[in-house]
C-alpha cells in the first residue's frame, strides 16, 4: 500500500495535501463533513493584530478557468481569534498552520508575541503577498522579505513558512533572503494580480481595481515558480499552491518540486476535493508502484522517474 505520509519541518503530515490559507476558513466548518485527518494540514485564514473588515462587494469575479478575489484579509483580529476560534481549531484532527500578516515589522513583532501564547499550532505561515490590500506587497521586495522574515523568526520557535507572490519581484532572491533570515520553508504562490473590466459600464468590477487570480488558470505559473525555486534550493521545504484542482495538477506540483501542495480555489468550488485528491493520489501511487511521496517530489528536476 502506498504511503502518502510526508515528513517535513520536523512534522509528520498525513498527506501532502494541505488546505491553503483563505477559502477553507479555519477548517472548522469542514470538520463534520470532510475527513480532515487525511489531509496534511489546515492553513488558517490570515490573522492580523487588529480586526479587518476586508473589502467591499463584489469580492469575487468570474474568470476563464478561475476567479478574481478581493476578500482583503477579513478576519476578527488576533484577540478574537485566540478567544473564540483557536480553541476549536486546536480540536481539529489535523496539523495546523497559522497564517499571519502585518502592516509593518513592528506590528509583526507584537502579533507574534501574542501568537507565542497559542497552543496547538504546528507551523506559522507569514503572508507577505496578499494582493488585495492596495499598494505593493512586502513580498515583492527582497529587502522587505528579509526584514519581515528576520522579525518573525526572532519571535517564534515554530517552523516558519514565508508566502511569496508569484508575479512580482525577484522570487529566487526573495526566497534566498527569507531562508537566510530563518524561514524554514516557502509557500509559493499567492493568487496572481489580475483585473477585469465590466464592459457594460466601462469600470473595473472590483473596488480596488485589481484582485487575486486563482484557479486552474494559474497552475502553470505556480508550477514554474516552484520549479525555479526548487532548482535553486534543493533542500528548501516548498508548499506549492496555485491552481491545483485535479490529481494531475497535484502530481505536477509534487514533481515540479513541492513537498506539500496547497488547495485554495479548488476547495471553494468543491469542498470535498482535498480529501478526494488524497484518495486518488494513494490509488495512483499503488497502481504505478510508487512507494512514497518523496519519490515524486522534484521528479521533474531529476529528469523524470522510473516506474512501470
Amino acid at each position: 500500500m502506498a504511503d502518502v505520509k510526508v515528513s517535513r519541518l520536523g512534522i509528520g503530515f498525513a498527506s501532502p495535501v494541505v488546505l491553503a490559507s483563505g477559502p477553507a476558513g479555519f477548517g472548522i466548518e469542514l470538520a463534520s463533513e470532510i475527513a480532515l485527518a487525511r489531509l496534511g494540514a489546515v492553513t488558517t485564514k490570515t490573522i492580523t493584530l487588529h480586526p479587518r473588515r476586508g473589502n467591499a462587494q463584489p469580492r469575487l469575479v468570474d474568470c476563464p478557468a478561475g476567479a478574481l478575489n478581493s476578500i482583503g484579509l477579513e478576519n476578527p483580529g488576533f484577540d478574537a481569534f485566540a478567544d473564540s476560534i483557536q480553541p476549536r481549531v486546536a480540536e481539529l484532527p489535523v496539523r495546523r498552520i497559522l497564517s499571519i500578516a502585518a502592516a509593518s515589522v513592528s506590528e509583526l513583532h507584537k502579533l507574534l508575541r501574542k501568537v507565542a501564547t497559542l497552543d496547538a499550532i504546528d507551523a506559522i505561515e507569514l503572508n507577505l503577498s496578499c494582493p488585495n490590500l492596495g499598494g505593493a506587497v512586502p513580498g515583492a521586495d527582497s529587502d522587505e522579505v528579509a526584514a519581515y522574515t528576520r522579525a518573525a523568526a526572532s519571535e517564534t520557535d515554530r517552523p516558519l513558512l514565508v508566502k511569496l507572490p508569484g508575479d512580482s519581484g525577484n522570487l529566487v532572491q526573495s526566497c534566498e533572503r527569507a531562508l537566510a533570515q530563518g524561514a524554514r520553508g516557502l509557500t509559493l504562490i499567492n493568487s496572481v494580480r489580475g483585473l477585469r473590466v465590466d464592459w457594460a459600464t466601462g469600470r473595473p468590477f472590483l473596488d480596488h481595481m485589481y484582485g487575486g487570480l486563482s484557479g486552474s488558470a494559474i497552475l502553470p505559473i505556480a508550477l514554474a515558480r516552484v520549479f525555479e525555486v526548487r532548482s535553486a534550493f534543493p533542500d528548501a521545504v516548498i508548499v506549492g499552491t496555485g491552481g491545483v484542482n485535479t490529481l494531475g495538477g497535484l502530481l505536477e506540483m509534487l514533481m515540479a518540486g513541492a513537498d506539500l501542495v496547497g488547495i485554495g480555489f479548488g476547495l471553494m468550488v468543491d469542498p470535498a476535493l482535498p480529501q478526494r485528491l488524497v484518495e486518488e493520489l494513494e490509488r495512483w501511487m499503488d497502481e504505478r508502484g510508487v512507494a512514497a511521496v518523496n519519490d515524486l517530489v522534484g521528479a521533474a528536476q531529476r529528469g523524470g522517474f522510473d516506474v512501470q
Partner: protein
Amino acid sequence: MDDKTIEHDDATLTGSRFFWQRAQLIDRRASQRYARVLLRGPGVASDVAVGQFVLVRYSDDACLPRAFSVMSASDLGLELFVKTEGRVREKFATAPRGTVFEIRGPYGTPYLDKISHARKYVLVGGGSGAAPLLYFRKRRPELVAGEVYGFRTRDAAGLLHEVSLTAEREDGRRAHEQLASVWRPGQGIIACGPEPMLRLIAARYRDVDDVYVSLEARIGCGIGTCLGCSIETSSGMQRICKEGPLFALRELPWLM
C-alpha cells in the same frame, strides 16, 4: 427519465451538503428570458427550507458554480426559476431533458428563522428573485398579505400560471410602485430582486418594522468559509451564504 441511470460512484456522502450530487434535468418550461427547471437526483436534498439556495454547475466546470434560490422542493425534485443568461443558466435553457447537472446545498438560513411570525408580509420579487417568494407563499400562505412581482419582460408570466401574479395584471409598473398600492401599515415586507429595486424599497420603507431583503452576491464556497460573500451589517460582517441571504433592512445601513 429514470433516476437509476445516474451514476453515483463518488458520492461517498450521499446527501451531504458539502458534496456535489448529480441531478438530471427532468422538466423545463422556458420563455425568452426565463426558465423554470426541475432537477432530480438520488443525493439531492429534498428538505430545502424557504429562502435557501443551492449551487449548480454543469460538468467539471473550473469556474465558480452558480447560486439559485429554490422555488420548491419535494420528492419530485428541486424546482428553480432562473434567468437564461450566463454560463450555467444558458444550459438550463438549451440542454435536453436528462442532461446531468451537479448540485450542492442547500445553504443559507431559512427565511422563517429570521422573520417575525407575528405579522403578515407583502412579498416583492424582481425577476428571478421571485423564486424564493413563490416558495414562501406556497409553504406559509397565512403569512402573506400581498404579492408584487416585477419582470422586465412580460414573458415570465407564461411560466408562472399556477400562481396569480401581479405582473400579469400590471402594465409594466415597476415593482416598487406597485408595492405602494399593495402595502398597508402594520404589514412587513420581504423583497428579493436586483439591488436597484431593493434600494428603492429601502428608501421608502426604511422606517417600517419588519422589512427584510434577500441579498445576492457571487457565492464562492457556499459553506461560510471563503468570505467571498461577506457584507457589512450593523452587527459586523456577515455572510450571505450563511447568516443570509435574508437580512433585516435595519441591519444594512449601506442599502438605505
